[in-house]
């Protein structure tokens, strides 16, 4: 028993030392990682809706969006959000921006594990560019009657992206309109 206690104690000491070192490294790297993440997020949002400051609105624990206001006029320039749906092999996460009329200003696929060479081509500009200016109604693969040209050999990925965006815009639109209504009602 004594031996076990001793062994346990040694293990504990080693672990504590390791933890200490890790905590120290973490304290150096964590801010850097956080800053990188922020920077990247801001950069991607800026790419979608330029010259804006962003304000986060949480709709539900699963969905939130950013309202983009003009840096100077504070006028609403549009919204950005992340849409996600299961694609061919796993979830495909797409960041997108819409203008105040809920027309897409651009998209960026931020996370996917689709088939390389096929579905994975959804990150390429050839595919993402076509989303610019599309409305909710257009957001279907061309095969399904929409205006999104399918990736060759990867209809499922195309569908997943299109339909996730469509759903997200729908939720967004509802929420924005609701919000506006509440404000109106409050004003009354």
């Amino acid at each position, binding site marked *: 028993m004594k*031996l076990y206690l*001793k*062994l346990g104690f*040694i*293990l504990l000491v*080693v*672990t504590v030392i*390791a933890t200490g*070192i*890790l905590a120290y*490294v*973490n304290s*150096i*790297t*964590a801010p*850097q*990682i956080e800053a*990188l993440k922020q920077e*990247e997020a801001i950069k991607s949002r800026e790419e979608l809706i330029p010259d804006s400051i962003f304000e986060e609105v949480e709709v539900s624990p699963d969905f939130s969006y950013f309202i983009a206001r003009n840096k100077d006029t504070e006028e609403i320039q549009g919204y950005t959000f992340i849409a996600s749906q299961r694609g061919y092999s796993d979830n495909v996460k797409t960041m997108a921006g819409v203008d105040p009329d809920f027309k897409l200003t651009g998209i960026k696929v931020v996370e996917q594990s689709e*088939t*390389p*060479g*096929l579905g994975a081509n959804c990150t390429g500009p050839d595919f993402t560019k076509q989303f610019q200016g599309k409305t909710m109604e257009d957001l279907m693969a061309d095969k399904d009657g929409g205006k999104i040209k399918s990736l060759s050999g990867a209809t499922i990925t195309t569908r997943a992206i299109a339909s996730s965006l469509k759903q997200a815009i729908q939720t967004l639109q509802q929420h924005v309109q609701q919000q506006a209504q509440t404000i109106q009602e409050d004003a009354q």
Partner: protein
Amino acid sequence: MKFFSELTKGIIKENPIFVIVLGMCPTLAVSTSVDNALGMGLAATFVLICSNMMISLIKGIVPAQIRIPIYIVVIAAFVSIINMAMEAYLPDLHKALGIFIPLIVVNCIILGRAEAFASKNNVLNSMADGLGMGLGFTLSLSVVATIREILGNGTWLKMQVLPSTYDPMLVAILAPGAFITLGLLMAVMNIIKEKN
């Protein structure tokens, strides 16, 4: 002299992948492109060197019964460090390698070297061993990645090497391609070994 021979053995004679056959998972998973392979290889090399040295340092004071858990803690600590460092300073590579960085912990090469070599040798030789094994690992990874990237994407280190009319053989960068490429490479190694 010993230092030098410990260094080179990992590259050819005791190559961790082709000869000892350890560390298959990352080899197959991250060899889709040469830059990923290099990144993974160097990360593993770093962990190998550090853990080998550390374990060699503490070998005198570690009770035999709990040496494995302690080795794992040491390795896990170094892996976590490189994981954080990469995330902070090489975010793109960190993203590409994904879960395989934390999984360096269970890469059998590292624990294997700790147990087989570092726990019995001095710090300098352990470092050489770690470096050699790491380089051997990196080299083999790069060989596999070279084949897969060229066949499956027509590029090498992102540079176009095959004519643009080449219709890439996608399977090479998919899972089946990884297994088959490595399998054939090992068969070729066997044939070479037999000839010698």
